[in-house]
């Protein structure tokens, strides 16, 4: 009995201590990690979506608050003078969440382009969604009333062969982006003035 209690106490104390330590490190590194993700994931994605802008989308980013969501929005002023926004949504893929940066033109409500950001898909299979632009380029120019599901689900997007789960994750993220945009558009337009 004593031995039993001893084991339980040691394990409990050890795991509690470990949890506390991890929480401390996490909170210390959180801001820095966010900066790194911004620099190495979001910045290249935005550069890909808006190759030429007359402003700096990263520096002018702002937060839009809706019903229980907070959205980080990157505004882009395109070279033809029209306004667009980019923001990130997530769909669940094969190895965890797949982040998708979606750029939308405010005047035509159509997609400028999309790019995959953070993901943990299988290298060489699901990761093609990020490395090979032929899949994500299907979204560019599409109106927001398009069905962004893959063709097998009755939508307009050709899935990558061998990477159906990842393709569906990207489709889901795009659909979510559409819903969020439709809900928050008035607020976004107000903040872009």
């Amino acid at each position, binding site marked *: 009995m004593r031995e039993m209690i001893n084991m339980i106490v040691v*394990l409990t104390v*050890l795991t509690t201590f470990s949890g506390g*330590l991890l929480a401390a*490190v996490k909170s210390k*590194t959180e801001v820095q990690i966010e900066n*790194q993700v911004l620099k*190495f994931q979001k910045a290249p994605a935005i550069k890909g979506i808006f190759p030429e802008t007359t402003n700096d989308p990263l520096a002018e980013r702002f937060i839009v608050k809706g019903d229980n969501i907070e959205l980080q929005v990157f505004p882009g002023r395109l070279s033809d003078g029209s306004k667009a926004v980019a923001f990130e949504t997530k769909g669940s893929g094969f190895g965890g969440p797949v982040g998708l940066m979606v750029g939308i033109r405010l005047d035509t409500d159509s997609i400028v382009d999309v790019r995959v950001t953070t993901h*943990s898909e299988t290298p060489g299979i699901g990761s093609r969604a990020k490395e090979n632009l032929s899949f994500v380029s299907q979204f560019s120019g599409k109106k927001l009333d398009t069905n962004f599901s893959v063709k097998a689900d009755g939508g307009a997007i050709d899935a990558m062969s061998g990477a159906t789960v990842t393709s569906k994750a990207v489709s889901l993220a795009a659909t979510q982006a559409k819903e969020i945009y439709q809900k928050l558009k008035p607020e976004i337009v107000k903040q872009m003035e």
Partner: protein
Amino acid sequence: MALSLTKEFTKGLWAEIPPFRLVLGLCPALAVTKSLENGIGMGIALTFVLVCSNLFISLLRNIIPSKVRIACFIVVVATFVTIVELLMQAYAYELFLTLGIFIPLIVVNCIPLGRAEAFAYKNGPLSSIADGLGLGIGYGFSLSALASIREILGNGTLTVWGGIPAFSMGPDFLPFKFLLTAPGAFVGLGLMLCLMNLIGKK
């Protein structure tokens, strides 16, 4: 005392060098050694985990009941691995992108767990640190050596840090791409093992 510490340290560099003598930790050794940069990064990460987990387990060795020792080892090792992962994300994000999944896999890698069971649980903190440091550095060296061979012959370059090649075989060199694939890693590792046994015999 000092002599035995040196002995614990140096055994990891040759007599018990992890991938070749103990033949442990092969999964990351084969997977991440496509470039020298990755090899060094993995070596540093493992050294940190090994030193910290050895120190903690050695300090707690009289408190941890032997029936739950494996569970305790896993908790300690996993904690330090997660810390390494967070620190790497915060300060070396590019390295984190290439090492990716292999950092969390250090937890189930047999080196930290094996050293905890075979060494740190039975020895004092100082010699445990020396043991962890020696094995970690030995592992880092082995990975760097294997990675250098694979990168030079497979890609024709050698990148130490930051994506700029420090050494190049020149434009006329035809890269031996096979070495960059997983079977190429096995062949490279086998040849190095062979060489080590040949030298060890003399």
